[in-house]
């Protein structure tokens, strides 16, 4: 591993496709698919973008289907982003709800005070989340292992308390946003596309990181931080940058979601269940892989939707979330993508890294 790590450089995040070839020699030979990965990914993106059109004649409850589509894309965006610090670098954060809130509230305030559409404000909402991520990372990443997890929980509660008592943003009673003036049937479509942008961005970022020297450095940190440091990786900045990058598309997802609710309350964003979902999706899909969080997000949104329809919106949903997490950790710690890869049965269209 040393011959790669000595080339590492913190100043830029080089994204070189040919790195792919010489950097990952230890992986078992990829099963030759009928279609290449690039084509497969292109098809997926096309499907996501065309889905609202395809769905028109197929589903009678169009608005509901669009809502589920939007939620799936949102969770893909969140779990893929979380995976950058929690999967690649191996630093489990339970505080990423903060960035969700920063995104949601910054876009909400821009709309309420300056009349800027959250759709246009998206990139800025992401940047705001990233900036907070940078500052929070500088503090919380002074610790490792369990102390880091504790620090992220404290971060979450600190922000919740602050937002709950900050009159400017409506405190705990919340902030009302003007409604979007679109017929109900088509209401969700713009949100769907904005969320698709966020999700594709998150997966693309995750993909580029996984294929860069930066990503390799993060994996080295996750394997053995002391050795990574000895090998010349500036572990501190690697971690802080990963933490900050992981906040970006969670921020944009929060901005879109908050706007779709038209009413922002701190607890919507800071609920520990939000953080729990991100973690669960990454783990069940395969932590540290690019495709894993996507698979996990689709699966868990599906399970959740099923259980809500079967049992109603009860507390049993949170029990299901917790129980799946425990079971996955005990019996399935590498997740779907991780386990399939280990046994060499990962289909080519899911092999994104």
């Amino acid at each position, binding site marked *: 591993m040393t011959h790669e790590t000595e080339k590492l450089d913190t100043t830029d995040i080089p994204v070189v496709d040919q790195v792919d070839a010489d950097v990952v020699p230890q992986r078992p030979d990829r099963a030759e698919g009928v279609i290449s990965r690039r084509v497969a990914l292109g098809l997926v993106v096309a499907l996501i973008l065309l889905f609202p059109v395809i769905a028109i004649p197929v589903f009678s409850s169009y608005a509901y289907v669009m809502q589920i589509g939007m939620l799936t894309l949102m969770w893909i965006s969140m779990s893929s982003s979380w995976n950058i610090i929690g999967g690649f670098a191996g630093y489990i954060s339970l505080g990423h709800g903060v960035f969700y809130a920063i995104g949601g509230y910054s876009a909400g305030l821009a709309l309420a005070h300056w009349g800027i559409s959250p759709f246009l404000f998206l990139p800025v909402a992401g940047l705001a989340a990233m900036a907070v991520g940078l500052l929070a990372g500088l503090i919380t990443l002074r610790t490792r292992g369990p*102390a880091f997890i504790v620090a992220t*929980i404290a971060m979450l509660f600190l922000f919740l308390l602050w937002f709950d008592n900050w009159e400017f943003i409506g405190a705990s009673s919340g902030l009302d946003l003007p409604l979007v003036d679109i017929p109900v049937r088509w209401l969700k479509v713009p949100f769907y596309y904005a969320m698709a942008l966020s999700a594709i961005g998150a997966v693309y970022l995750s993909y580029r990181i996984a294929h860069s020297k930066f990503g390799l450095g993060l994996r080295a940190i996750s394997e053995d931080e002391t050795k990574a440091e000895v090998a010349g990786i500036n572990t501190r900045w690697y971690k802080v940058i990963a933490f900050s990058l992981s906040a970006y598309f969670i921020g944009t997802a929060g901005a879109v979601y908050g706007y779709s609710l038209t009413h922002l309350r701190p607890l919507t964003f800071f609920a520990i269940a939000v953080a729990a979902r991100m973690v669960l999706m990454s783990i069940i899909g395969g932590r540290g892989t690019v495709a894993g969080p996507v698979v996990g997000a689709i699966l868990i949104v599906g399970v959740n939707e099923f259980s809500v329809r079967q049992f109603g919106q009860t507390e049993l949903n949170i029990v299901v979330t917790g129980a799946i997490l425990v079971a996955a950790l005990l019996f399935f710690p590498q997740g779907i993508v991780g386990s399939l890869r280990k046994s060499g049965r990962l289909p080519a269209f899911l092999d994104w890294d």
Partner: protein
Amino acid sequence: MNWVQLLVLGLLLGSVYAMMASGLTLLFGVMRVVNLAHAAFILIASYITYLLFENLTLDPIVSLVITMPLMFGLGVIIYLVLFPRIEGSARYVEMTVLLTFGLALVVEGLLTFVFTGTFRSVRPDYVSTSIHVGDIFIPSNQLYASAVSFALLIGLWVLLRFTKTGTAIRATMQNRGAAQIVGVNVRRISAFAFGTGMALAGAAGSLLSFLFPFFPGKHWQWIALLLSLIVLGGMGSIKGAVIGALLLAIASAVVTDTFGPTWSPITFYLTLFLILLVRPQGLFGAKLRL
């Protein structure tokens, strides 16, 4: 309010926090388990106490006799069922955190399902009385809770200091491998320590039930507070947890008095952040290398 009054109130609550935190830090010391479900288990005991009080009018302090052994048993079972599976896995500490996180969600969901999300409280007579010493007033419930906590802390100290099992526990805390070499049955000691930590959680649940109103989601606030305490004291250090608890409880009493009760939890989280900035290993902890 005058300073003596704040100090008294802080020390009273602080000793309850100290007892809660010592259970949590014991688990970490012996088994490297960061038990995110600790406060959820505390709440289970609170609800048991609530049921006993509502149905049998059993005094919440007396119900310690039931909650402590019950939680001890539950702890041993959880330890034996869950932990052998993940012991020896490469990311053990991280696994324990996520595992107990999942457990906490399950417990919270089940409690909400059974008891709904409404606030509950246990109100024996001494909830509304207080004792006056000069111009200092001492709420009776806090006094009793603090006395019981203090007794339990002494009990824990005696257990760890003067018994053979306690010596084995301390040996395991210091060096698991070496303890095993000199003949400590590490797994049994771990199960016992887990049970003991959980028994303390049981006691804490019974005491909290008549100090604060509770609802199933409240355990997140408690766990965040407890974790701040043990990070402040240095994870795995019982002495640190006790001192951290007393200091923070006094600080929080002062903050409550100055800025109002909404801001009292902020003392804990802000202290945690500041400590991490200047001294990540906490007051009494060795630098964490995990």
